[in-house]
């Protein structure tokens, strides 16, 4: 009798406490505060910040990936810091300074490996996702960048100085590296399409781009848009464009041009050019909203206060917004209903309704750059 009462009492006490503590991560996100070395944890449904994690080093150009359970964020800092953040407890649960200068990372498709691309010393280091113990160092004779995950515990990256792309297959006990020479002059970034099939590298030092079919028995470099850029005046590039896994819009791939104020359209299967859209300035990100109906574009310094929205069927600009000075990044909610936009120099993230293109909310963030929602955990190439 007393035992039963005690038991009842226990469950009564335990239930509300549990309800309070339980929290799902599916609508959470992490925003990089680049100048203060911190990240803000945000709740998409509440359109609000729910916490801040500090002490993360130089976060200019920082990016992050999520663990498959969407609980941990692996943050890649410019200063070579790799931090593992528990977004529920809002604590740093692991941190290593793994190089002097790094540029981004990736998580393997099985969620077990974290890879980081380094400038100094050049190459890619691979870590155990649980412990951050270093498992391998794939050396390169230059700045490694454009690091992407591919199906089957593979990573693909390119080297700015040596014009190579390396495919690292870590499905066995030791990584096996295949080097493709001649990806083109000065690859500056790359993407893998969301089906995991096509790796595309942007080239700074020559016309066109390069693509690799990762499904091929023997992957080869194929030049695409080879005449792109010829006979046109090169314009100075004050910020390198980014290529991202958000490039696929239906059966097309959308790419920001470099040296030109254009967005390029490529057929996802044939990789032939299907069009160009003249835009406001040097594009930095061209991101297809989930579903691929529209593409949002932001721009390099000094014309970086503006965003344009392009219809993927007509390739026409259908909207233009001016969120404020230094728009650095955009992120869509998982089904594309909202776009969150970081406005660095006004210390805010502005939230847009993607149908009306009207702002519907705002969050105060210190010098925001990258915005990352946890739904990324379940996509290849992000």
């Amino acid at each position: 009798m007393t035992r039963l009462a005690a038991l009842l009492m226990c469950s009564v006490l335990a239930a509300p406490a549990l309800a309070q503590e339980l929290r799902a991560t599916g609508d959470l996100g992490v925003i990089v505060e680049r100048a203060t070395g911190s990240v803000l944890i945000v709740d998409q449904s509440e359109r609000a910040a729910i916490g801040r994690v500090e002490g993360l080093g130089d976060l200019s150009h920082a990016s992050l990936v999520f663990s498959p359970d969407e609980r941990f964020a692996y943050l890649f800092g410019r200063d070579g810091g790799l931090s593992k953040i528990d977004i529920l407890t809002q604590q740093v649960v692991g941190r290593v300074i793994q190089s002097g200068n790094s540029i981004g990372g990736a998580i393997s498709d099985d969620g077990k490996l974290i890879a980081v691309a380094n400038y100094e010393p050049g190459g890619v280091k691979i870590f155990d996702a649980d412990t951050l113990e270093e498992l391998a160092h794939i050396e390169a004779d230059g700045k490694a960048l454009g690091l992407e995950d591919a199906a089957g515990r593979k990573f693909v990256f390119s080297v700015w100085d040596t014009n190579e792309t390396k495919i690292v297959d870590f499905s066995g006990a030791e990584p096996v590296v295949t080097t493709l020479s001649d990806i083109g002059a000065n690859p500056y970034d790359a993407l893998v399409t969301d089906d995991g099939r096509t790796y595309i590298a942007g080239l700074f030092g020559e016309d066109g781009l390069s693509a690799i079919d990762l499904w091929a028995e023997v992957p080869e470099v194929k030049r695409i848009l080879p005449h792109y850029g010829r006979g046109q005046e090169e314009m100075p590039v004050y910020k390198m464009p980014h290529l991202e896994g958000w490039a696929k819009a239906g059966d097309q791939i959308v790419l920001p041009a470099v040296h030109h104020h254009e967005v390029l359209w490529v057929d996802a299967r044939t990789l032939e050019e299907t069009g160009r859209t003249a835009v406001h300035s040097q594009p930095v990100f061209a991101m297809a909203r989930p579903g691929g109906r529209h593409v949002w574009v932001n721009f390099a310094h000094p014309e970086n206060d503006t965003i344009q929205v392009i219809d993927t069927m007509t390739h026409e600009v259908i909207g233009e917004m001016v969120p404020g000075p230094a728009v650095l990044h955009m992120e869509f909610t998982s089904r594309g209903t909202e776009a969150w936009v970081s406005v660095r120099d006004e210390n805010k993230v502005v939230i847009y309704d993607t149908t009306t293109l009207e702002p519907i909310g705002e969050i105060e963030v210190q010098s925001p750059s990258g915005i990352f929602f946890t739904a990324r955990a379940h996509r290849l190439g992000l």
Partner: protein
Amino acid sequence: MPERLAMTALIAALLALPGAAETISPEKADELRHLLYQDCGSCHGLTRKGGLGSPLTPEAMEGRDRDGLVEIILDGLPGTAMPPWRPLMSEAEAYWIADYLLKDTVQ
């Protein structure tokens, strides 16, 4: 005519003294510092330890020629990713940035 001459002389004097020609107001200095940290920082790193661009730390700038730096800033380094900033800034502004980069170095 004399006015024209005086004007020409004035312009010549201004051109000869690029560093001092135009004084940089405190507000302008704030803007330039911001530009250096944030927008140069996108290639050179917020702490200027380098990225796609080379390090611009005091150690890296040690013994560097002021005019040489200004030339790089204004005209860029063709064949590399360093863009020319002339379309976006005046010579005086470039001198201010060069001096800022040289500030903590031993010349």
